[in-house]
């Protein structure tokens, strides 16, 4: 009993540190969340914590304004159509490349890999004009396909980099024994490599999904402004402009557009548990 009590007591500082960090991190978000339920006028004139002193004045006006905005439903579907392939394509291609970089022999392997990582540093703004010139010529401007490929290209360096790190850390014996059993590269890749790097793939899915979902700039450049293909970020952006700087609606819009990325984050949490690799990798 006293042993258990002692253990609980020594863990108190741990809980204090973790909870304190979480609270500090949460305050800005809470401020925005509470603001999103306040009348637009109140946001501009008093702090969000005023809601805790009566009279409490909460309303769903900002949410109603954001949800019922023209074209919001269609742009939600558009965002899905844009984001799903723009997440799958770069991660799959990067996994193929990571396997080649980590386990296949070829001349110039390190130089090529460093080139890929260095490309992380290319500022996207500098790529738009040369790409658009070609897109206009081949008719990819305003097409989902063009946007998928653009996001895939831009997401590639980080995906290859992260996956090369985890695929490269797998033990050599694994490949040698599979190879001796007569497995082909196809089998080795899909039956051994992919299942073992699931935690890295899950983190990549979370971030690539998030970045594409929240992207405004790349969508504006390659899709133009047509409502039929516009993602949510573009529709939300228009909401503010057309109402003449009605920025308060952004507080509600921010939470609406966060729902799906958070669902992805939650549903992939189960791949971040200890022991997912147990039994397959010797320590």
């Amino acid at each position, binding site marked *: 009993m006293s042993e258990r009590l002692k253990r609980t007591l020594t863990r108190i500082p741990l809980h204090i540190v973790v909870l304190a960090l979480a609270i500090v991190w949460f305050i800005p978000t809470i401020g925005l969340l509470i603001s999103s339920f306040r009348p637009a006028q109140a946001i501009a004139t008093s702090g*969000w914590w005023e809601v805790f002193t009566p009279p409490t004045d909460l309303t769903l006006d900002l949410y109603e304004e954001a949800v019922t905005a023209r074209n919001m439903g269609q742009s939600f579907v558009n965002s899905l159509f844009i984001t799903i392939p723009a997440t799958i394509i770069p991660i*799959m291609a990067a996994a193929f490349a990571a396997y080649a970089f980590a386990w296949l022999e*070829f001349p110039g392997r390190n130089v090529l890999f460093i080139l890929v990582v260095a490309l992380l540093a290319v500022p996207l703004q*500098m790529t738009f004009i040369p790409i658009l010139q070609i897109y206009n010529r081949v008719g990819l401007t305003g097409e989902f396909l063009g946007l998928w490929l653009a996001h*895939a290209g831009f997401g590639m360096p980080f995906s290859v980099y992260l996956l090369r790190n985890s695929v*490269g850390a797998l033990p050599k014996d694994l490949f040698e024994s599979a190879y001796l059993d007569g497995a082909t590269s196809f089998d080795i890749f899909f039956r051994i490599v992919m299942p073992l790097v699931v935690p*890295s793939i899950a983190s990549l899915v*979370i971030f690539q999904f998030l970045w594409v979902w*929240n992207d405004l700039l790349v969508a504006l450049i390659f899709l133009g402004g047509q409502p039929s293909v516009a993602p949510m970020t573009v529709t939300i952006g228009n909401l503010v402009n057309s109402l003449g700087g009605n*920025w308060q609606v952004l507080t509600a819009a921010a939470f609406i557009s966060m729902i799906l990325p958070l669902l992805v984050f939650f549903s992939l949490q189960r791949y971040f548990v200890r022991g997912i690799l147990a039994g397959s990798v010797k320590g």
Partner: protein
Amino acid sequence: MDRLILGVVVIVGVPAATVAYIWLLEWVLGRLPYGTATKIRPWLWLLPTFLLLGFFLIYPGLNTFRISFMNARATEYVGLDNYQFAFTDPAMLAAFRNNLLWLIFFTGGTVILGLGIAVLADRVRYETLIKTIIFLPMAISYVAAGVIWTLMYDFQPANRPQTGTVNAFLTAVIPGFEPKAWLFDQSYNNPALIIIGIWLWTGFAMVILSAALKGIPEELMEAARVDGANEWQVFRSVVLPLMMSTIAVVATTMVINVLKIFDIVYVMTNGLLNTEVVANRMYKEMFNYRHFGRASALAIVLLLATIPVMIVNIRRFRRQEEIR
């Protein structure tokens, strides 16, 4: 109907196509002589990546390099003029100094906090809750983040009620505290912006480091504990060494990220009051002043600044291959 077809393509077609590519190429390679197949296999596995990179990053990168030696509208070559501007203009020197501040505090802050939170949250039962809270800012668009931090850093003169969270809190807690204009006072504005960056990006470091942490076999830590190691020693001598390569990946990504950082500065101060950073200046040269030569030169300078980090990475990957 069109959208229905598109939906099927999106959900079934795209993933199937990626798997089919590898299946097809291995089918073809299986029909070639063994030696030939081994030689071409790597290039076929790399092909999709390099097609995408070639078109979307390498080709525009080379184009940028060429334009960096040209005048404002990219009509004639001007030698090294743009680079001379980049390294001598007083505003640029201030931008480089600010980037250095960002480099140290943003990279250090996100990596250390991300690692600390990943490790500490791993030990409590409400881990998912903590991780969600830290991750939340990553899911917020930059524009919304701008709204949040405008509310956080808002400033009213001392005798008026404070509407900004930070000033309201500090005036309530510290007697006689003078409210500060966090974004406008030059002694605080750069740290204030870097704090926004850390708040946004720590979740990124945490998610990736947490994934690496979960990959460490429990038996290794248990063995160290049985040998009498305390929790700190287990962390220092078992966990940390095994996470080193992932920490390096996160740190590298953060360094490159910080060189390109512009959204936060753009949204909050647009580089006024001595908060300019190189990437924001590049954006201004490109879209406001329409000086493509200078914008390109700044992009190339940022690219060259990553060389030391790349060298460290090459060494690290060589080592990984020697020991596995």
